[in-house]
């Protein structure tokens, strides 16, 4: 169990570092609080939706800024507004702040300024995505390892018994995360 505790501690430390670096803010904590037995992967689901949406909006803005005949700043403004809303909902603080800075250049119809902001925004988004994906991997790994140990102990008559309900729930989580359950006879 020591290794499981180690992984769980790693998860907590990594999560704290995301807050310290300003990658996420208190809103991310609120999001994690919404996770329960009915939706144990809620944060991952919301994050995936956000990544998809963010990539689409960044792409749209890049295309809009490349237009030779004239930049549609109204479209840029709408993209920034939407991204500001979704990043603040998920607690992606640095992405949200990048949107706020971007807004002022878009309002001023400053194409060069907008291009620089878009670059900064892409950078913040990539950073967030990497960090969150790492966080999710550590979370899933510790859960999987815990269940493997549980199943191993079930096969070992000298080990403490685990409640079947708990094992069943954890097995469901592994399968939902894309893993498979080793069967011990």
């Amino acid at each position, binding site marked *: 169990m020591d290794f499981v505790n180690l992984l769980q501690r790693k998860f907590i430390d990594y999560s704290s570092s995301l807050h310290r670096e300003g990658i996420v803010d208190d809103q991310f904590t609120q999001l994690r609080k919404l996770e329960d037995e009915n939706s144990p992967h*809620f944060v991952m689901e*919301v994050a995936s939706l956000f990544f998809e*949406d963010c990539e689409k909006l960044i792409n749209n803005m890049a295309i809009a800024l490349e237009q030779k005949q004239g930049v549609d700043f109204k479209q840029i403004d*709408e993209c920034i507004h*939407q991204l*500001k*809303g*979704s990043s603040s*909902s998920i607690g992606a603080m640095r992405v949200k702040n990048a949107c706020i800075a971007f807004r002022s250049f878009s309002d001023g119809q400053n194409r060069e300024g907008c291009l620089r902001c878009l670059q900064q925004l892409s950078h913040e988004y990539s950073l967030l995505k990497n960090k969150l994906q790492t966080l999710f991997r550590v979370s899933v790994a510790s859960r999987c390892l815990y269940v493997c140990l549980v199943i191993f102990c079930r096969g070992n008559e000298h080990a403490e018994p685990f409640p079947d309900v708990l094992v069943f729930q954890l097995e469901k989580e592994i399968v939902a995360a894309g893993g498979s359950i080793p069967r011990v006879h």
Partner: protein
Amino acid sequence: MSTASLITTWKVRDVVPVPDQFPTSLRVLVVDDDPTCLIFLEKMLRNCSYDVTKCNRAETALLKLRENRNGFDIVISDVHMPDMDGFKLLEHIGLEMDLPVIMMSADDGKDVVMKGVTHGACDYLIKPVRIEALKNIWQHVVRKRKNEWKDLEQSGSVEEGDRQPKQSEDADYSSS
């Protein structure tokens, strides 16, 4: 029997139910074109034990409301949406269904908030919306229904003619 005396014989409260308890299964329609915000709001509302329907388009929301006029108690809508402005949706709902509508936006500018209030929104929430703000949205439903009963009762006592108007606990009528 004249219509006037018919009106005074039954009390409004006998016909329209008064929710004196916390209405846990409030039916909420939430409208937002941002998928991240929509799923986040849906989860928070479900955690408040509300019955949630989500929509990512204002037109779809209006369709659902028209198809099922008594199917929802309250609407929560984003301001900036691609197909229809949130204020336009607010106007339609006010005219057709008269449901309480809460507007929300990442935009916290005073002029936008004012626009929400003047267009008839019962509340305006700034994103990111917190679960604490959603827990109490039932108050808007109760308040609206209470105002509707007051209007009905008032129109009932006006029809009576010579009788003195009753002194009620909240005698401050906004309209005469």
